[in-house]
């Protein structure tokens, strides 16, 4: 029998849990590292560079604070973007999920999550990445390194639990989204500095994906807290740009995308 071009939607789709960077079990961290290592080797549409170059240089398709009067697609666009990279990871390593960087936890410790730092004597695929041939000469011509770099500030300057709580309590979605973006998301990009502080280069740093998973988690928590989706129905049919192949409506419910957020998880296989 011929293989169908697209698999039918699984009615028994398993919901996967995205977990905190601080609470990954060793097997979960191993899967994450292996996933990033594998997709960095690829030059096709599952490749790390393929997705990283969509956000900033050279494709510049990310959505951020628009001028008043334009639809704010910051949260839907980045949810779809994370989802597509996570699918690429899971194509190579099915157990891999994107973890979330709890800024409020690491502000009392390392700042940058320890699993994203260099490991003595080993190559950690989460510690950074080279820039692709499509931009590296321009990056170097601008006086910057040929791979990602960070210059983080003092950990205590990361957002506090009180700041996050205050923003989650905002009822109006547009005000919530814009405040989350400008006051927390932008702040953390500027806190990491280096390539993470540059829109054109940020997504090449694997830390970007943990940062944005935290942002996405806060939208998820806001949805739960306020029993609301967020974006107005008038834009649910809007296609998220850059070849993400999803509409705003497609990304309103994380369960429909097959994931949920958890602090940590543990499983026991039960055999009949």
């Amino acid at each position: 029998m011929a293989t169908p071009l697209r698999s039918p939607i699984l009615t028994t789709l398993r919901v996967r849990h995205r977990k905190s960077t601080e609470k990954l079990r060793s097997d979960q961290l191993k899967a994450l590292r292996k996933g990033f290592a594998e997709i960095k080797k690829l030059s096709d549409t599952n490749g790390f560079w393929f997705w990283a170059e969509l956000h900033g240089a050279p494709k510049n398709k990310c959505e951020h604070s628009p001028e008043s009067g334009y639809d704010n697609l910051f949260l839907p666009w980045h949810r779809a973007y994370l989802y597509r990279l996570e699918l690429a990871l899971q194509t190579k390593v099915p157990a891999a999920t994107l973890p979330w960087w709890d800024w409020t936890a690491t502000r009392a410790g390392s700042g940058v999550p320890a699993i994203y730092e260099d490991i003595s004597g080993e190559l950690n695929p989460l510690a950074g990445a080279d820039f692709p041939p499509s931009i590296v000469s321009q990056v170097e011509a601008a006086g910057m390194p040929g791979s990602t770099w960070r210059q983080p500030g003092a950990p205590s300057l990361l957002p506090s639990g009180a700041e996050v709580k205050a923003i989650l309590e905002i009822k109006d979605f547009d005000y919530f989204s814009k405040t989350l973006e400008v006051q927390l998301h932008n702040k953390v990009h500027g806190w990491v500095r280096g390539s993470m502080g540059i829109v054109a280069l940020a997504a090449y740093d694997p830390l970007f994906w943990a940062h944005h998973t935290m942002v996405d988690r806060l939208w998820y928590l806001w949805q739960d807290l306020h029993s609301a989706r967020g974006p107005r129905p008038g834009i649910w049919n809007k296609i998220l740009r850059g070849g993400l192949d999803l509409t705003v409506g497609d990304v309103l419910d994380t369960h429909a995308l097959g994931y949920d957020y958890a602090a940590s998880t543990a499983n026991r296989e039960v055999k009949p």
Partner: protein
Amino acid sequence: MERYSTPPDKPFAVPLWEGQPDFQRADLQFHGVGHRGDSYEGRIFFDAPDATPATPLELDSGYAGSFYVFGHGPCLGDEDHCEVPAGPIHPFDYRSVHHLALQSMAVTVTEAVRRAIADGKSEFGVTVVPTNVRDEEVGDTLHFERLSLVTYD
């Protein structure tokens, strides 16, 4: 611009209705915000035109709040890559908004406005000091085209 202060002859009037504050929230809205160059924090002070990155982030020092700009960095494209086009060049020009299209941002400054009213002020000036994460003032990154004070009841 390196920093911004409202012109001395054009401060904001404190928002009062029949002599009383009648708002739940007050926002400063920045329109036409540019985001070329480095990321930075825009620290907002009321009636503190000489504020620096060392000025304490407290109401007593005039601090009202901050906004954070995620800067695009240097141009990494061909010539004119970072020139923002004026608009569609054809009715079917459905290309995405340019990556350097101007943005808007809002900062809630309710406490600082209430403080100005409590201090008996009838008006106040606004100063924005662009600062990086190392508390250094950053030069020539701040850009916006209009500043509004908006209250909500």
